[in-house]
């Protein structure tokens, strides 16, 4: 039986309500507090490091994000680690939480389709993440202006905005993943654990697994140098399955303009190259576009799987 009307009627109402719920939830406050505290810590360390460095740099503001000082990692490294946590926190009980609170049938008795409910929950979460990221970014830039006494250049602002977009896509992937688990598992704790497992796997263990698997797929023959290249290519391809790797590469190229390539480089490609010369923003954007496209596509695909699973579920239980 075909039903009439747009499947997305009421989408904005659900999204705004969901966003408002997240904004006031204690869970969100705790996670954001964690993120902001670590951010301030790493930025403060970075400013100390930058101030003690004598030298000219055209991209001082970008160094705010990437400079690390022992024992703190850089702001970008923190984000790569903690952004999935925000996504998981916002999405792990998106669907099964409604079941456990027995509110699902009540919502769906309203004149909206399930399409709008899931899409609204996803967009609401994405909106909250976006707001948090923009706030964080402004906070960092403001701290930078205050302590460095310099305004950022237009190039730095462009790169910062692209960095925001990449961060949003990265967090979106983890939001979609956690929503998928919340659709698949009836218990919120199970879905949360599943999402956290995947997060730990990708952020911590994937970097160790990828060389092992690559070594098994393409073993190195000591008498054939090309096998080394093959193994390195395999290793990189496997590492790029992890959204964490993609995000790391994207931020590296965006925040360090002298990054010219993210893959394997042969020496003859470097002949005559001027090392250290910054790339224009367009070239950097072109360089990370595959990574960004991969993140966006992964987000859409994971959401689609969650959507299909949700649409086919029995919800009157």
């Amino acid at each position, binding site marked *: 039986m075909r039903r009439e009307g747009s*499947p997305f009627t009421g989408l904005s109402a659900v999204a705004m309500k969901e966003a408002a719920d997240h904004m006031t939830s204690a869970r969100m406050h705790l996670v954001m507090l964690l993120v902001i505290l670590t951010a301030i810590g790493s930025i403060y360390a970075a400013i100390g490091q930058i101030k003690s460095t004598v030298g000219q740099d055209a991209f001082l503001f970008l160094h705010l994000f990437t400079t690390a000082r022992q024992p703190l990692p850089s702001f970008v490294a923190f984000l790569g680690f903690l952004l999935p946590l925000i996504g998981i926190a916002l999405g792990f009980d998106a669907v099964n939480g409604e079941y456990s609170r027995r509110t699902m049938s009540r919502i769906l008795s309203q004149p909206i389709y399930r399409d709008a409910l899931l899409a609204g929950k996803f967009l609401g979460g994405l909106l909250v993440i976006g707001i948090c990221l923009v706030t964080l970014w402004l906070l960092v830039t403001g701290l930078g202006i205050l302590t460095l006494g310099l305004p950022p250049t237009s190039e730095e602002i462009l790169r910062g905005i692209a960095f925001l977009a990449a961060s949003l896509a990265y967090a979106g992937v983890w939001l979609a993943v956690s929503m998928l688990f919340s659709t698949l598992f009836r218990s919120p704790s199970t879905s949360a654990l599943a999402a956290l497992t995947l997060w730990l796997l990708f952020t911590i263990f994937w970097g160790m697994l990828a060389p092992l698997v690559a070594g098994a797929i393409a073993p190195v023959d000591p008498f054939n140098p090309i096998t080394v290249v093959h193994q390195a290519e395999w290793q990189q391809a496997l590492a790029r399955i992890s959204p964490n790797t993609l995000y790391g590469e994207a931020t590296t190229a965006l925040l360090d303009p002298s990054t010219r390539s993210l893959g394997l480089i042969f020496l003859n*490609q470097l*002949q005559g*190259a001027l090392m250290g010369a910054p790339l224009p923003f367009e070239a950097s954007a072109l360089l990370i576009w*595959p990574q960004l496209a991969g993140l*966006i596509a992964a987000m*859409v695909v994971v959401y689609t799987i969650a*959507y299909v699973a949700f649409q086919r579920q029995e919800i009157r239980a």
Partner: protein
Amino acid sequence: MIRVPSLPSAILFAGGLVLCASPVLAQDQTNSTKPTGLWLTTDFPAVTERIGEKPTLPLTLTNAGEPPQRVTISLDGLPKGWSGEVTGDGKPIGAAMVDTDAKQRLELKLTEPKGAKPGTYDFTINAHPAGGAALTLPVSITLAAAAPDKVKIEPKLPALRGTPRSSFDYSLSISNDSPNEATYNLLAQTPPGFVATFKEEYGSQELTSMPIKAGETKTVKLSVKPPKDVKAGLYPVTVAASNGDVHGQARLAMDITGQPNVTLSGPGGRLSGSAEAGKEQTFNFTVGNTGTAPAAAVTLSANTPSGWKASFEPKTLDGLSPDDEKQVVLHLTPSDKAIAGDYMVSLDANGQGTSDSEQFRVTVTTSTLWGAGGLAIIAAAVVVLGFSVNRYGRR
């Protein structure tokens, strides 16, 4: 005149210039009897001097066999305006004493008046021994007109040949043929834009003038630097030494041969451009000749990173006249494996004996085809979503 008390007659060489009795002659005549008496003698009693040179006469007071005597010496009949002074041991004296059988050397210094005319001037030197007859020595001085001052300048090599970049070094001998020391200003007249400097023969000090003693010859070095853009040709240089009164000059020649100077400049004067990896890009370069002679064959070449292709069109320029410019096109294809960013390509324009090399900075952009690929992946994901919405939607 000599007083010869012991001789019956004095032997006078009246026509001669030396007015003295030769003791040798006297000895001959008196059969080994030495003449005794007092003599006042001078070597040359009639001399010719140039005007301006103070005449000096050496006098000798001789006492042979006489007791020591005081002899007063005075000048008589000096022409008007003249002054004279007799000195002994460098001090002015009025009288002298001579021991027996001794000689006293004296000197008469004469000063002529300013503007003294050439001619012969006569006067007498008197010597009065105490209690004896006066001795007189007539002297005749002829003043001759001074020789005119003269300075001569003579180049060792009057014509040199070189390129506009070379320095032309002339060696000049300046001789002062005047009777006096003089300071000469050194002057060089060159075509406009040429720089001429005088230097010591072995030294780096620049000179404007130089003192030269009478009759001396000194060597100075004149180096002339032509302007860089001077046309080929023969250029005259006049060099002179002058001190206001006299002037000596010589003509030098500079034969400047032309030299080509090839320059290479990038599109619009810039030395950077951008090209897409794996795609041919053309850049317009300008080859110019800022030299003064035509460049025969200018070969253009490019030194690129490996895997790049670069060729000039045309590869060779036949003959580029001075101040001429020609356009050449550089076809540059970065390697398709080139990574995004800046590369350096070195370009050479090589004429015969002249060349120019430029570093051309190429910003390699990568193909946006992959960008479209990324969009396609996202579009595929969205299509899958749309399909599933269509299939499972609106429940």
